[in-house]
């Protein structure tokens, strides 16, 4: 009953929710969706519980076929996709709305556009075993359902419930495309490990997002950031968005599946308001960093939350 066949898994598709809390002391990172806004909007469109597990994909998404039952789906992000009805009719998909799919319909998530991550959700949710209260897959530690692995070709997705033909929904307001390449950061806890030149390099030069970027971290390339002290600190807890600089002088931004403890000095940390946007930045993009204070960071985060709430409030029946 209500089975979806994964005909093509895509490049990096995995089950994600908001992650696991309060387990970092035994080495388990929160993890979960990289782009919280798009994750929450996807569930909102489907009128799911806000933490319902869904499929996160990077670049190319999955191609799936409804082999048993009917379902309703939604895709969020900046994503190009087609729905191929069993009759052969191809519908060009639109993000931020739901679609009713019948048995034998196919959904082909072709690619993300000017971004890395997109989200595919099902009304009522996917039937997944929770581990430590979450269905988030951490493939590096093999944590979570599906044996802690990413989606593979020929996997079967079981849905929690069958959906009968009903209204489709759309967000009348959608997130604005953010093309800003200046990322706001707060001062890091080990600023004194860097020379004045090192700090100037970090705040005034541009850094390129390298190909060595995944759910764990984003490696940047650019002018060497000069350290004054030993490049090792006493290992301490990490928070996502931390920007650490190892001896090479090339910064690494730790993303959602970061290691829980780290021993490199942190020059800065991404302001929460800019984290989703940063994580969506494509390799090859040139970024600059701008320091803001705690008060400014709090205001910008409140604004982000308010904007998301306004977007969710614009949900309407089609």
């Amino acid at each position, binding site marked *: 009953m209500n089975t979806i066949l994964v005909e093509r898994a895509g490049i990096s598709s995995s089950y994600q929710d908001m992650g696991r809390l309060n387990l970092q002391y035994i080495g388990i990172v929160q993890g979960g969706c990289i782009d919280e806004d798009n994750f929450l909007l996807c569930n909102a469109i489907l009128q799911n519980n806000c933490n319902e597990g869904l499929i996160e994909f990077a670049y190319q998404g999955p191609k799936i076929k409804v082999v048993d039952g009917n379902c309703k789906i939604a895709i969020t992000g900046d994503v190009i996709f087609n729905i191929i009805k069993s009759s052969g009719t191809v519908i060009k998909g639109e993000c931020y709305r739901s679609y009713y799919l019948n048995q034998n319909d196919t959904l082909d998530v072709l690619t993300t556009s000017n971004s890395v991550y997109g989200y595919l959700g099902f009304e009522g949710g996917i039937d997944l075993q929770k581990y430590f209260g979450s269905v988030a897959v951490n493939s590096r530690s093999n944590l979570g359902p599906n044996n802690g692995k990413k989606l593979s070709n020929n996997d079967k997705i079981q849905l929690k419930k069958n959906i009968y033909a009903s209204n489709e929904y759309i967000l009348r307001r959608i997130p604005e495309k953010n093309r800003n390449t200046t990322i706001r950061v707060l001062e890091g806890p080990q600023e004194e490990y860097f020379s004045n030149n090192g700090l100037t390099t970090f705040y005034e030069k541009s850094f390129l997002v390298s190909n060595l970027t995944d759910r764990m971290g984003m490696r940047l390339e650019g002018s060497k950031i000069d350290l004054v002290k030993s490049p090792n600190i006493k290992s301490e807890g990490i928070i996502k968005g931390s920007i650490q600089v190892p001896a090479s002088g090339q910064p690494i931004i730790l993303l959602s599946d970061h290691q829980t403890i780290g021993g490199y000095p942190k020059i800065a940390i991404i302001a929460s308001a800019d984290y989703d946007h940063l994580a969506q930045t494509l390799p090859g993009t040139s970024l600059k960093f701008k320091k803001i204070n*705690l008060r400014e960071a709090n205001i910008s985060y409140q604004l982000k939350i308010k904007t998301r709430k306004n977007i969710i409030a614009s949900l309407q029946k089609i």
Partner: protein
Amino acid sequence: MIKQILNFGDQGLICDFGDEVKKEINLKVISLFKIINFKIKNNEIQGIKNCTPSYNKLIINFNLEVISFQQLSKIVTSVQEQDLNKILENQKTWKIPVCYDEEYGIDQKRISEYTGLSISEILDIHQKTNFYIYMIGFMPGFPYMGDLDDKLYTPRLETPRVEILDGSVIIAEKFCAIYPYKSPGGWNIVGRTPIKLFDQHSKNPCLLFPGDNVEFYKINLEEFKKLV
């Protein structure tokens, strides 16, 4: 006691206990961790995403939608020194079997050359040490243990290995650790334990906890294979 409280970005708070790596200081970090965790479980604090103890710091990641840095700082500073000094309850001492056979203890020669001790002296010191778990992290279930006898002080490998077997018991500088998973790594491998440190399917997924103690004892290859 807490030397300073700092923000770590807009959703983080650092309780800094000073620069030293010492068991007495780490015990206070873990006490504070337990106090905060107790408050989370009793719903006395909301909006905590994570609380990570390390050698000399407790780093709290909070949800800015629920609690502010100022509110959390107040809660942390209200914890009394005397509460941090209370002896930790439920601190366990684990006896962990290790197969020190050549097959697994592949860096014993390197340690011997560096320290000038014979291999049997090295294994003897390793088994006589009562290790203390400063913290668990890096990957699920990975214990950072100290303090290794100064006589065994050996630096990390210059070029880390691409793959180290799960269960490998490793030393570097003044620390000892065990790899719960296969992993790349640059520490010196002294042996391998058949004990699984982390299993997400188990009722108690993580065997060890920060603040626990660990002692190692020798088993032979046959016993190792039986226990795996």
